[in-house]
């Protein structure tokens, strides 16, 4: 079994109300030194076979077309054993 991890985050220039809400909560809780919080999505896809068997380009196109919207989001993808 291999695991494909796709992290999807809003592009840095896009407003992230979720991250802002967490940021606000941290401030109210008295946590200092926090500069910025961004909240995104994490997908863990378990696939048959081992790392070498994973069709990375297929996975990339899924990450790009299904799991994220390139207009507002960036993704990173990695394959783990």
């Amino acid at each position, binding site marked *: 079994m291999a695991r494909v991890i796709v992290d999807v985050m*809003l*592009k*840095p*220039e*896009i*407003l*992230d*109300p979720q991250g*802002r*809400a967490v940021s*606000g909560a941290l401030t109210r809780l008295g946590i200092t030194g926090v500069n910025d919080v961004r909240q995104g999505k994490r997908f863990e896809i378990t696939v048959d076979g081992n790392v070498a068997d994973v069709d990375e380009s297929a996975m990339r196109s899924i990450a790009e077309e*299904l*799991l*994220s*919207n390139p*207009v*507002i989001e960036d993704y990173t993808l990695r394959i783990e054993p």
Partner: protein
Amino acid sequence: MTLDTVTHAAEHPEDDQPFAELGLRPEEYDRICEILGRRPTSSELAMYSVMWSEHCSYKSSKVHLRQFGNKQPEGGWPQLMVGIGENAGVVDVGDGWAVTFKIESHNHPSFIEPYQGAATGVGGIVRDILSMGARPIAIADPLRFGPADAPDTKRVLPGVVAGIGGYGNCLGLPTIGGETVFDASYAGNPLVNALCIGAMRHEDVHLASARGVGNLIVLYGARTGGDGIGGVSVLASETFDAEGPAKRPAVQVGDPFMEKLLIEATLEVLHTGLVEGIQDLGGAGISCATSELASNGEGGMHVWLDRVLLRDSSLSPEEILMSESQERMCAVVTPDNIDAFMAICAKWDVEAVVIGEVNDSGRLTIDYHGERIVDVPPRTVAHEGPVYQRPMSRPMDLDALQADSSDVLPRPTTGAELKKTLLTMVASANLASKAWITDQYDRYVLGNTVLAQPEDTGMVRIDESSGRGVAVSTDCNGRFVRLDPYAGTQLALAEAYRNVAVSGARPTAVSNCLNFGSPEDPEVMWTFAEAVRGLADGCLELGIPVTGGNVSFYNSTADTAILPTPVIAVLGVIDDVERRTPMAWGPDGELIYLLGDTRAEFSGSEWAHVMHGHLGGQPPRVDLAREALLADICIAGSRDGMLTAAHDVADGGVAQTLVEMALRAGVGARLWVPDDLDAAMFLWSESAGRAVVVVARSEEMRFTDMCAARGMPATRIGVVDSGLGAELGFTSSGDAGQVLDLSGKFTVSLAQLREAYEGTLPDLFDSGFSR
């Protein structure tokens, strides 16, 4: 980085400016130079280009829209408190209450990013209403998509619906109506229109103007980021050196929670009398807000642009001026009140900063870190943009199209054919239940919703003690408009008017969202002009003013324009919501009447569309006097307690009306075809000016006498009948044993109808994964 200051601009007339990339024509650029007596600075160019865009300046539509103001009764409109021109018009609805409502489009953003596009569409219209001093009380969402089974519709529709729900639900506004229409012409260019209604006391009406020398301009709400300024990056890249600015997103992301705080903070500063003028920030952001406030005031205004709180410190001054970041407002506050104003913002966790001051210079001046980057006469930016008389020509294919009537298409005749047609029609995407969509909207929040989808109209109570309320309905059959834009637009007006009236409210005012193709196409422009003429004439005849609206041009893909879609919203007033007439018919034995005349009018109908894929002919005849009479009768019927139910007849004809009434009630009926009609004509013709009403036996004489006296044809077409031994009522098993029986033709069970009616949208959209 070099800052293009006013001095620099005056000294360097030779600098090339990318006005064409910003959408300005050479003669428009020349006019700016003439107004200023020099070339504009890049910041001024940014302001003019966006304020003179079609979207902000209405340069192609203005000459036509004037009719809404010009065609009015002698002495003006009695119910109108604030007319067209303000953020939204205001209507007197009695007892010291005023209501404002408006629709706006967010079509293009919703295609690119359906969720955020639709969400920010709701956010924008809500701020428009708020800026009149009103508390937003309800929203509605007229939507148009490509074919229901098209793959792209599966991407766009769920996202749009989730976005409207996500924003509206979180904001705490009930969604009480809307439309969902599928047509191939909208593939690649869906229409996402959003309507908001707000209510206030007469004395709370506020206008967007900056008066009083020394008064302060406060920008409050979300911070300013690089949202929606793709276009102006051209300027930034000119002014910035080699590395250039970060890439700017064209898509805006909404923050409904911030908007909720903005609403509460704004209403609190308004109600404590801390505000002299107020303005929302929508398209064109600070450029628009400052120039409009200054232009509406009598003096001038100065702004310190570097005081604007930024989310992204790399923004250039041009970009700050243009940013379309959401959830921001501007207020004009006296120096005496500024501390109290700031305290209320702080209470609601809303950031606020003074960015400017009203003065008597007659100019709008803007400084950035001590340097003058804008010095303009504000009216020339906000109100004296270019105005065009675009060429117009009647579509070449219109004669041929109108000659190709749907009335000659083969109609079903046997009982079996009729029944099969009924089930097909009821299951077709445009007629099927929209519950899959509307169940994603909170219709209960605020506790004043009296009617909401699937009723003819949304209705909310505005005064708990008196029961006074307002109703709103939006409509447009774009096929009718395509066949005859003048008549088709009047049919849209008539339908919205009728929907409001059948529920017992008195239609009072109109708003609109005119969705068309390119104004540079003379055929589109002609169609647009005819639609506006039809609407203005229709409103005059019905005695209800247009209070505002929105024009959305350039709705086309490749070279095909969408069906011309002037969405018309009618607002009604009801003195006591307790007397509203719902659409579900009542108990056994009540009598079902069809009001109005039925003719063979199939052109542009849903039947021709679904059963024959045909579009041609002349739309149904328009008779606005008849519509007004129908409204009077429905309102009288509600006031005098004669009607237990009413439902208008529109798309899908009488058949659809009856099915919806039966399914809403869970109770069947025995029906018959009137003597002078063939069954298919009775069931699916879309003649206008009709409604189905339900009358208790004890009221029958009184009701039919009233109709006869007033010249309204009333034909008994059936009786509510729960069937032998079947259980009555609204329980979940209410359909059991219930049938619609069309005497001598066919019998169909409500269970079968419900399956057809309710299954379609879930089958199409349930499986979708939406981001």
